[in-house]
């Protein structure tokens, strides 16, 4: 039985669109997607699944909701795409409404379940198919759709105006220069080694992270730049809404901007889904088997700077610290050892989570779930009690979250479950701990 509170959530993006749906249109869209769109892959997955249910224990929503079978990955598939296939698209508007709730708010496409499937079925792919169908039908949670609209109109996810972007970089450069003499954020520096790209919440609400990176770049002696024009945002919620056309446009502009600037690689800030969009889903849709030039996640970048001695640590964080392994850079890229190397360099008392690495639980915010916004917040928090328990077991005071979705999601969980912890990006710890070469880098916590 689905959570009755979730079923009662009002979301104009879903409810009003469903009211206008005609069965014939639903059938046509489903047939189109199931026909040309997915073919053999879907068929293999559907024919291979033996309904064993081993995926259930992998899912944070299932575990957090007292093992309610409705929240098992297999159930989410059975209740959505299987029915569409079985009924050859002849499903009702109400059915689509249920599909949207399940696909957008009860699954974050974190892919943990695929590791527990004896056949390795990519269940998240099946959920993404459901999202694609919902998107084509215009049935998308309102806040997620608004984010996608922002991507489509502005190429960034938070309606950041072009002048606000540049102004923020200038302002952050000036702030950073107050901290460390000579710090710059070079704009449009053609031929720099690195283009640094971020996600829109950084200029919008977390601008200090950009100043921090400017300080890090200065200390490490990196030849870098940031673009002044659209294409600076590497995030991509269209990937998660199912609007792959907008996803492709956003990713293309990001890579075109890097190619115009003649940089050798792109370093991105601490975000997981953006890594997935820029390295996997975006390039794939555009026809690239890999990004046209290398993309380096912040975790890989910090690791590189520390290993090569370009940044030295002056003092370590004393209070107990734990970590959130972001799905898209750990399960998706295997950065967990590099992540722990960095944390151990920065922190005296690191307390690892269990389970960890690629087996870690999702934050329940990624995959577009947190972007579904306030209507679904309670549902999201109820769906990750298991994460709260996992973090509480470490007795840490600080949770390192090298991903914006994880950062926001874990912060919400900490508040809802009263864990008394704080979240932090690595970037924030690094500027406190590193030797800046000017006698600073002192920290007491």
């Amino acid at each position: 039985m689905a959570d009755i509170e979730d079923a009662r959530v009002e979301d104009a993006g879903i409810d009003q669109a469903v009211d206008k749906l005609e069965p014939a249109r639903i059938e046509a869209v489903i047939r189109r997607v199931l026909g040309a769109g997915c073919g053999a892959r879907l068929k293999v997955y559907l024919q291979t699944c033996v309904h064993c249910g081993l995926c259930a224990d992998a899912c944070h929503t299932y575990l957090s909701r007292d093992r309610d079978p409705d929240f098992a990955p297999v159930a989410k598939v059975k209740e959505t795409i299987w029915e569409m296939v079985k009924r050859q698209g002849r499903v009702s508007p109400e059915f689509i409404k249920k599909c949207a709730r399940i696909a957008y708010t009860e699954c974050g496409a974190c892919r943990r379940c695929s590791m527990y499937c004896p056949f390795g079925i990519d269940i998240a792919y099946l959920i993404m198919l459901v999202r694609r169908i919902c998107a084509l039908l215009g049935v998308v949670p309102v806040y997620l759709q608004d984010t996608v609209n922002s991507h489509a109109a502005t190429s960034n996810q938070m309606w950041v105006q072009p002048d606000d972007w540049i102004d923020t970089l200038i302002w952050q450069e000036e702030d950073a220069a107050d901290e460390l003499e000579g710090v710059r954020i070079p704009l449009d520096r053609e031929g720099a080694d690195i283009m640094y790209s971020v996600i829109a919440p950084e200029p919008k609400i977390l601008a200090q992270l950009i100043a921090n990176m400017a300080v890090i770049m200065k200390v490490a002696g990196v030849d870098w730049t940031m673009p002044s024009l659209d294409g600076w945002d590497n995030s991509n919620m269209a990937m998660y809404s199912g609007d792959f056309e907008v996803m492709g446009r956003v990713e293309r502009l990001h890579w075109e901007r890097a190619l115009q600037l003649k940089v050798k690689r792109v370093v991105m800030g601490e975000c997981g889904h953006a890594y997935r969009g820029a390295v996997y889903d975006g390039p794939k849709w555009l026809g690239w088997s890999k990004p046209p030039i290398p993309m380096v996640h912040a975790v890989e970048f910090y690791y590189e700077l520390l290993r090569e001695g370009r940044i030295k640590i002056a003092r370590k964080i004393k209070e107990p610290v734990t970590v959130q392994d972001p799905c898209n850079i750990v399960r998706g890229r295997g950065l967990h050892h590099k992540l722990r190397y960095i944390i151990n360099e920065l922190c005296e008392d690191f307390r690892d989570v269990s389970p960890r690495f690629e087996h870690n639980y999702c934050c329940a915010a990624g995959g577009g779930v947190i972007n579904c916004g306030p209507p679904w917040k309670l549902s999201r928090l109820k769906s990750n009690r298991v994460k709260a328990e996992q973090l509480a077991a470490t007795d840490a005071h600080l949770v390192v979250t090298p991903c914006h979705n994880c950062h926001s999601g874990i912060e919400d969980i900490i508040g809802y479950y009263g864990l008394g912890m704080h979240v932090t990006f690595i970037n924030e710890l690094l500027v406190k701990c590193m030797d800046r070469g000017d006698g600073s880098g002192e920290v007491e916590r």
Partner: protein
Amino acid sequence: MSGIDGWNWDAGERRVVELGVLSSFEQVHEFAVSPDGEKLAVPVVEEPGQVRVWQNGELWSEAVERAWSLRFLPDGRLVALVRVDDSWTVAVDGQRWEDEFEFAWNLKFSANGRSLAVQVKRGMKYGLVIDGRDWGAEFISMRDFALSPDGKRAAALVQVEQLAEADIFKFAEGVWSVAVDGQPWERRFINVYSPVFSPDGQHVAAEVRLDMFEYSIAEDGRPWDAVFGTSWAPCYRSNGKGIIAPVRTPEGWALVENGKPVWQGRYSQMWHQRLAPDGQRLAAVVSTAYGRWTVAVDDRPWPRTFSDVVLAPRFSPDGGRVVALARDQGSWLVVVNGQPWPGRFDMAWEPEFSPDGRHLAAKVERDGKFQVVIDGHPLPRSFDMLWSPRFSPQGDKLLVRAVEEGVYKRLVLGLEQLARA
């Protein structure tokens, strides 16, 4: 500065300016070099909040709080975006425009450099100024713009109606349009992208999003009848009669003209279509299979494909050759008519044809040093900094603008002499 014919094409090497003196400044920002190679300029920080532009050893008389986007125009004027007393404007050869703005950015100029345009913000509204003349129109947002070939007109992507927070329904009705000389098209669209003027500057085409999953091309606000899964930037034929764009069809990416297929081939991807100077032949970047990239000329892909990326192709002035930069297995190649030049590079810049089309030169980077490659042969000398080489009007000489051992130098090399060497 006079036109390219009037540049000094006497063969030889000249030390234009020593750069060691720049060490007296607190910061030295990004260099710019004039097209004729006679001048080098850079914003320098004298102290925090006090920036001047340094040009061949001379400073602009006025200090500003910030100066960026410094560049020489094709006609040799030096332009920058500057901030004074927290207001932004454009400075040309050290003279600020009279008008000031809350913000000014995205400088663009015409091919001859005589027209200069910039996006501006004033009173929380967005507009555009060309050569100091304000459009007057003010929009809720403006993302980008295109200039007409003569630089007198502009077409901008504008938001014409306010959206309440998360108002996805109003958004779907369309609140975006293209404003030409400040006047928005009557019709609104969900989105508009990539505006471009016709060669005579009388018409504007752009990508338009008609429905959430339907895209087309519109000219002067009127969309084609044909709709597509999505599209990329359109371009005009030189006669202005045809608009050509890559579009996504169920069979793959296609090249269409005025909505109808102009190429029969269908590709995994296609963009950056370019016309030959005769306005007939067409080249475009295409993906022939997943992860394989090349250039197709008149619908015939080069046999050689590349793994990473291929940049926009360019026809020679006589239309006989096509060149494109390609990244393959992690390094850059210069590819002419499908055949890569010898050598792989850490970076390569867009090559330049000689006016007669016989020669081709490019700036490349290898191991942190920069070189000029002519017709596939690298010059033996490498530099610390280098700007893309320029051919003389007769195509018999090459202008090299470079920094070597702390000195900015201007070199004019005779191609015959180079060939003998």
